[in-house]
């Protein structure tokens, strides 16, 4: 079973922050599509990142993604393992260089054998993640690349050193006057 209170708290945090930190003049991209190799989605994930606050050299964004390992389970039935990486990131940038710090949760839903191997079960779980990265993105340019250390605290039980290489494509909004 998923720890629902933890998920609810995390989502409320994501929803509340944009209102708390009203957007100001920005040169950071508003919307970015990010392809992660590794990272908090496991072996890789496709993500949408939205910057909801930015000021001079600083920005805060949230990111939601999707990933899967395989379409068919071990009995060859269509029954994919699914992952939904969610994160909140803060960045400090100067020109093209940005330091990134973030926290996240990944919802995983994996099909595996039951404890006594006599049936098939879908194991849903929540894991905590941390992000410490460096992003390179030229000012005003859409492409970015990010290298991150993304340790996973799997099922709130096991710590795993992990990392990611991310490629992003950003969509800018016009500056507010």
């Amino acid at each position: 079973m998923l720890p629902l209170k933890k998920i609810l708290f995390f989502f409320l945090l994501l929803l509340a922050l944009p209102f708390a930190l009203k957007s100001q003049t920005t040169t950071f991209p508003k919307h970015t599509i990010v392809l992660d190799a590794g990272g908090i989605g496991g072996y890789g994930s496709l993500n949408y990142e939205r910057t909801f606050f930015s000021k001079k050299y600083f920005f805060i964004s949230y990111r939601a993604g999707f990933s899967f390992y395989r379409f068919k389970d071990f009995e060859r039935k269509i029954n994919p393992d699914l992952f939904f990486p969610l994160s909140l990131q803060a960045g400090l940038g100067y020109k093209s260089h940005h330091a990134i710090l973030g926290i996240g949760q990944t919802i995983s839903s994996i099909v595996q054998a039951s404890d006594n191997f006599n049936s098939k079960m879908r194991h849903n779980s929540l894991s905590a993640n941390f992000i410490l990265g460096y992003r390179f993105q030229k000012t005003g340019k859409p492409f970015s690349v990010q290298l991150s250390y993304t340790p996973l605290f799997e099922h709130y039980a096991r710590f795993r050193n992990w990392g990611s290489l991310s490629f992003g494509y950003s969509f800018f909004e016009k500056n507010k006057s």
Partner: protein
Amino acid sequence: MKSFFITLITIALFISCGKNKVDLSQIENLNGNKITPMGHAGMGIASQFPINTFESIQSALSLGTGGVEMDIQMTKDSVLVLFHDKTLEEQTDLEGMIYEKNWSEINQAIYKNPPYAEYRILSLDQLFENIKDKKEFIFSLDFKLHESDHPDSYILRHWNALIKILDQHDMSENVFIESRRKPYLEKLQELRPDLKLFFLEEFEKGFDYTKSMGYYGMIMPTTTVTAEQIKEAHAAGLRISLFGLLTKNENLDAIEKSPDFMQTDKVKYLVKVLK
């Protein structure tokens, strides 16, 4: 320029199509002139399922293989478990050797990969208890002996544990026993002459011994044997099982040698080719 690219694509298509063609009617062996595709430790080393797990083995069998190869070790309290590596920490969140721990500890181990998954170590008893349609498949058991010394009492304990499980699940007919250690196989042959034993060795080093012992067959890396040598083994009444089949080309080359069994890491591909 356009014609150059068309020529290039045509050549590439020709090469890729041509390499997949094998003439299955040319296969001559002691297995009814058919090669049985077997998954190496389940779905092979490149699969996202860790090798030797229930999920990996069931997946290979569900794909249409004729069986699977599995690595077997024995715990301190004589439970046979499926595990390849010398130490537990290489693949799981536990540390130490299988033979140093009781089954109650091994049972708690979780495979490290893939992230977020929680695949567990399986005992041979659990496998035969739960695998679907087990009597339709072959299970080739590769006994890994990572301990430094093997007194007779240890060997006997090993084989008694195996015999008990095979009898309990009525699986003697469906199991191959692989080992590169002669005293092990000789002891098992003495205990249970009805079992199908395979000596694991390169052809030139092991053929005479295997033939003299009257074993069921030999198992060897595909690169160490020729089609002529396999023919010689067949003439001597020995089945041949090949492993080290990591790429498509290695699988195709192995088919041309007419072995009886192939333990492949390209499970899906080999099943498709041999269909």
